[in-house]
């Protein structure tokens, strides 16, 4: 298992969002997380990615406890081992497409020349080669999500966390974005955990789990499906 939540609970004040949620994801796997609004999907993703600390339970990444690391080590891990794609709002609108994609590399002290080369390579892979100089505030939703994917993958992360990456896109654009995300992650050997309400998006994954009332149910391990 590359990443695991073991009996993770998390509340916001008196609102329980996760109740002993379990999830195990193997290296290279693409897993869709589905479930009703407010069931705890985003909270689970944030706990797995070390953005939130669980109130109780454990999070394991690559054989190590993640939830007990201090803040510095955890954000270091997020920067080097994880990539993130959200529904919107993660790009800096005043910066160009290339600068947005380079950002995580520069934060990791990669030399500028090298970062530029890597960004150009990833923009090419996401069919964005012509848009490098454009400000991200001037992109369509589908283009912006492709930039977000380039930025998530440019650091060669072990795990990519995506929360409704196609939530604001139409069917065909969403499918295109999802095929790029999953296809490139597979080429890179990266694991993907994608939260989605969209069954077509979830069907691009290897399997899906359903979050209900803060618990994860996996129909393939609970025996509901033979």
């Amino acid at each position, binding site marked *: 298992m590359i990443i695991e939540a073991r009996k993770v609970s998390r509340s916001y004040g008196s609102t329980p969002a996760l109740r002993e949620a379990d999830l195990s994801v193997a290296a290279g796997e693409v897993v869709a997380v589905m479930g009703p609004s407010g069931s705890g999907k985003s909270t689970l993703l944030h706990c797995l990615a070390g953005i939130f600390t669980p109130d109780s339970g454990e999070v394991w990444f690559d054989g190590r406890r993640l939830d007990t690391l201090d803040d510095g080590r955890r954000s270091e891990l997020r920067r080097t081992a994880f990539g993130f794609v959200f529904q919107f709002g993660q790009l800096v609108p005043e910066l160009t497409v290339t600068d947005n994609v380079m950002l995580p590399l520069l934060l990791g002290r990669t030399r500028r020349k090298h970062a530029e080369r890597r960004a150009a390579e990833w923009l090419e892979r996401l069919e964005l080669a012509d848009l490098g100089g454009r400000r991200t505030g001037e992109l369509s939703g589908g283009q912006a999500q492709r930039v977000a994917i380039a930025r998530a993958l440019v650091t060669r992360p072990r795990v990519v966390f995506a929360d409704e990456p196609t939530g604001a896109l139409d069917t065909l654009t969403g499918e295109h974005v999802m095929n790029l995300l999953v296809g490139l992650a597979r080429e890179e050997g990266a694991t993907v955990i994608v939260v989605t309400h969209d*069954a077509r998006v979830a*069907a691009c994954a290897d399997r899906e789990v359903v979050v209900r009332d803060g618990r994860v*149910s996996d129909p393939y391990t609970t025996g509901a*499906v033979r």
Partner: protein
Amino acid sequence: MTVPLALLGLLEREPSHGYDLKRDYDTFFGRGRPLPFGQVYSTLGRLARDGKVTGQSEPGDGPDRKRYAITPLGRQEVATWLAEPVAAEPYLQTVLFTKVVLALMLGRDAAGYLDAQRATHMRRMRELTEVKRGGSLTDALLADHAMFHLEADLRWIDVTQARLGALAETVRAS
């Protein structure tokens, strides 16, 4: 065919006459297409022949002088059917609906059934996604057609899952 299993399920509540079974079937599952009496009696006859119900004759005359009761074999058949997801083809709403209502009526695990059905649909969606990946444009468009219908089923499954408590009350109150 869902009629024999629906009648069998209705009989699991309590032994009944054909007339009562028809009335309950029409109320819950008829949807404007009442079950003909002839079909009720021929179905009950076949179920009796196969040992899934027994018919107890009562004094008096007329066709409805028999009181039917489910047998252990019949009970087993209902349990198996209710737990089993239907193959993931589009246009299944009425079968799914019948299973959910009967499961609630009999205090069976309707939520578990819906989870299993959801997983079965999702597995088919993944197969169709694979077809699209390798296929021609016409393959892809045909797969898309099936996927949009499966998606409609999945939405219905989720909405029903969310309203299962209220539906259980409705079913038990009738």
